[in-house]
């Protein structure tokens, strides 16, 4: 129990110590402190995961335990799904610090401090069981991320990325706070379980619908769901590689995890009769996000921006998975997030190796230069296949759970659309008229002579890949994840456990047999991704008719879609407002 606050305290204390003494100690001490703190945090998160397998670990700060079933204090509520994401954050942070050792020629103490505070904030956000506490960690996480994206501040792209990121996410956070205030005004509670109990037995009314729409908007802005996603590609394309790993691997997914975290303990009772329409809205916006992200990724030349759009596409898949509102799909989504976070992190590191060795992140200019970094090529191949959902590696158990769950609730049309989103994103085009040439970075890391990449660069990339792809081979993982998700979604038992300390009844682990369908879709998305990649590489050798007709048909809509991503922050905020209004309108029309 005493372990729980350590996941926030360790990185915060390390950051404070570095702030005080870092500039006297030299770069390597900063690096080592960062690595040590990140490793320690990962170990603690993993221990929490293992200890919360059968019941939640609830930690009340300052000993303010609930009196007579009423929450007075602020709680951390640890269950396996959240602890898993916290462990992912720690592991990715460790890999980033190791990679940064050789990646940066010069880096100040401030970088390590910001990264550590960022880690503390993500852990706090993932484990917090209190709405306002979530907001505080949300903002802490945001502010660290803004500063880290703009770390190379003397260049224009990071400046633009950081400004767009900061303004859109701040507006999103304001909407979130509006929602929190309305919920508090209605229930007088901030603890998630307490809110759920206060709303018990009442039909949803207008105020509650507005509040829920505002909360949803705030978290979806952070996750980067369409149409809140515009900032994400600018920010991730401009951030330093070690930051991208964490942003793309964990932060986006935390926004979605928060949706599940507020829906199940607080709102699943009051919206129980409207679960069908809520499911349609969430899955619909997830599919839209997956297709827009995949399509935009197809048109990118800059590898970092490409991976940013792949991230958006996968956020869409997760949103659809969480939006199915079943235990199986929630467990599956969490497994998917974990495997996907490791693999995407590894891919960003591979891009970093290319940036470092070939001094370029533009795939057209890079063509034929694979010899400078053979290990990066291996990492790209592994990562691409991992993200494509090649059975039985990496993301396969997660996607199998989502696919089967979609069938269970009558959403059988969902898997083909998601598979299309995946392979569009991993396919590629080399048509310069469709892709925008990225600006050459003004200041690239210095070139390292020699044929072999230093192990400190490719080691973390390969390690993340292997963990991500190998996670699927943990025995019985799919069944365990379903069991954890069932506990997560059992609102009465969760409320009793949190507010009255009643231990949940031990549940058996449901067996899961994926059946044939997930293998078919995994094969489709893999073959489709490989096919699209070859189409992009060798399109010039195709007959003219095959080459031109699809090009002409898609050029117009493609140009329009790309023009929406204007890079101007005012447009992004206008889209955000539109999205919030659309979400609220849809909820208001369908909830009764």
């Amino acid at each position, binding site marked *: 129990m005493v372990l729980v606050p350590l996941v926030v305290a360790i990185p915060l204390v390390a950051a404070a110590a570095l702030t005080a003494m870092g500039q006297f100690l030299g770069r390597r001490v900063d690096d080592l402190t960062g690595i040590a703190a990140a490793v320690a945090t990962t170990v603690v998160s993993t221990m929490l995961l293992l200890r919360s397998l059968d019941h939640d670990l609830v930690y009340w700060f300052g000993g303010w335990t609930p009196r007579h079933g009423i929450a007075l204090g602020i709680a951390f509520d640890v269950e396996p799904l959240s602890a898993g994401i916290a462990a992912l954050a720690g592991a990715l942070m460790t890999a980033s610090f190791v990679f940064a050792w050789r990646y940066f020629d010069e880096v100040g103490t401030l970088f390590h401090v910001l990264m550590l505070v960022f880690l503390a904030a993500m852990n706090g956000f993932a484990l917090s069981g209190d709405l306002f506490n979530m907001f505080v960690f949300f903002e802490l996480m945001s502010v660290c991320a803004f500063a880290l994206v703009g770390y190379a501040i003397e260049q*224009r792209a990071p400046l633009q990325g950081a*400004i767009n990121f900061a303004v859109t996410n701040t507006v999103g956070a304001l909407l979130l706070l509006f929602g929190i205030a309305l919920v508090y005004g209605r229930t007088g509670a901030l603890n998630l379980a307490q809110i759920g109990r206060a709303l018990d037995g009442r039909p949803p009314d207008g105020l509650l619908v507005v509040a829920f729409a505002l909360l949803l908007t705030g978290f979806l802005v952070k996750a980067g769901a369409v149409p809140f996603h515009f900032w994400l590609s600018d920010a991730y394309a401009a951030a330093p590689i070690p930051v991208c790993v964490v942003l793309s691997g964990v932060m986006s997914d935390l926004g979605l995890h928060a949706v599940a975290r507020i829906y199940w303990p607080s709102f699943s009772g009051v919206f129980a009769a409207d679960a069908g329409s809520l499911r349609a809205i969430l899955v619909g916006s997830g599919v839209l996000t997956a297709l827009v992200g995949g399509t935009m990724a197809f048109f990118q030349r800059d590898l970092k921006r490409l991976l940013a759009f792949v991230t958006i596409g996968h956020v869409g898949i997760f949103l659809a998975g969480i939006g199915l509102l079943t235990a199986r799909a929630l467990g599956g989504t969490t497994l998917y997030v974990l495997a996907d976070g490791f693999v995407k992190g590894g891919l960003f590191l591979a891009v970093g190796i290319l940036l470092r060795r070939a001094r370029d992140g533009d795939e057209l200019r890079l063509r034929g230069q694979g010899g400078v970094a053979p290990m990066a090529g291996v990492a790209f191949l592994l990562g691409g296949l991992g993200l494509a959902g090649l059975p039985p590696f990496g993301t396969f158990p997660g996607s199998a759970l989502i696919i089967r769950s979609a069938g269970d609730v009558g959403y059988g049309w969902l898997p083909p659309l998601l598979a299309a989103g995946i392979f569009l994103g991993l396919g590629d085009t080399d048509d310069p008229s469709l892709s925008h040439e990225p600006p050459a970075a003004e200041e690239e890391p210095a070139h390292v002579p020699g044929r072999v990449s230093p192990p400190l660069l490719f080691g973390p990339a390969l390690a993340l890949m292997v963990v991500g792809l190998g996670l699927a081979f943990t025995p019985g993982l799919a069944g365990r994840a379903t069991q954890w998700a069932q506990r997560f979604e059992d609102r009465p038992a969760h409320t009793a456990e949190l507010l009255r300390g009643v231990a949940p009844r031990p549940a058996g682990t449901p067996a899961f047999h994926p059946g044939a369908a997930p293998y078919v879709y995994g094969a489709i998305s893999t073959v489709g991704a490989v096919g699209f990649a070859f189409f992009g590489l060798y399109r010039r050798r195709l007959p003219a008719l095959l080459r031109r007709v699809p090009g002409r048909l898609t050029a117009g809509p493609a140009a329009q879609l790309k023009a929406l991503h204007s890079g101007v922050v005012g447009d992004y905020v206008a889209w955000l407002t539109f999205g919030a209004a659309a979400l609220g309108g849809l909820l208001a029309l369908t909830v009764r």
Partner: protein
Amino acid sequence: MSYLPYALAVWIFAVGLYGVVRSRNLVHLVVCLSVAQSSTYVLLLSIGYVNRGTAPIFADVPKGTRAVDPVVQALTLTDVVVSVTVAALLLALAIQAQRHADTTDPDELSEMHG
């Protein structure tokens, strides 16, 4: 309890948001963002307001005195801290934009697009 404070909060938010969308100057944009942020203070404080309630300080007052909700005041204070942090960070970015890109117009900063 009248609806006026809530309408006021929504109005302040809308005005600030309009400014953020239309702004052609980063400093102006940060000010607009702060205006939008201040709407949350109005909302929070009006939610916790009790007619004829005193400040929630319970020393030297008889038991059972009506007081406004201290929780929302704590939330407001936290929110003030957060918004000052964000505003400071964005203003620092605006200075860097002027220094390195020689512009404070967000439209002219858009180097990446599409």
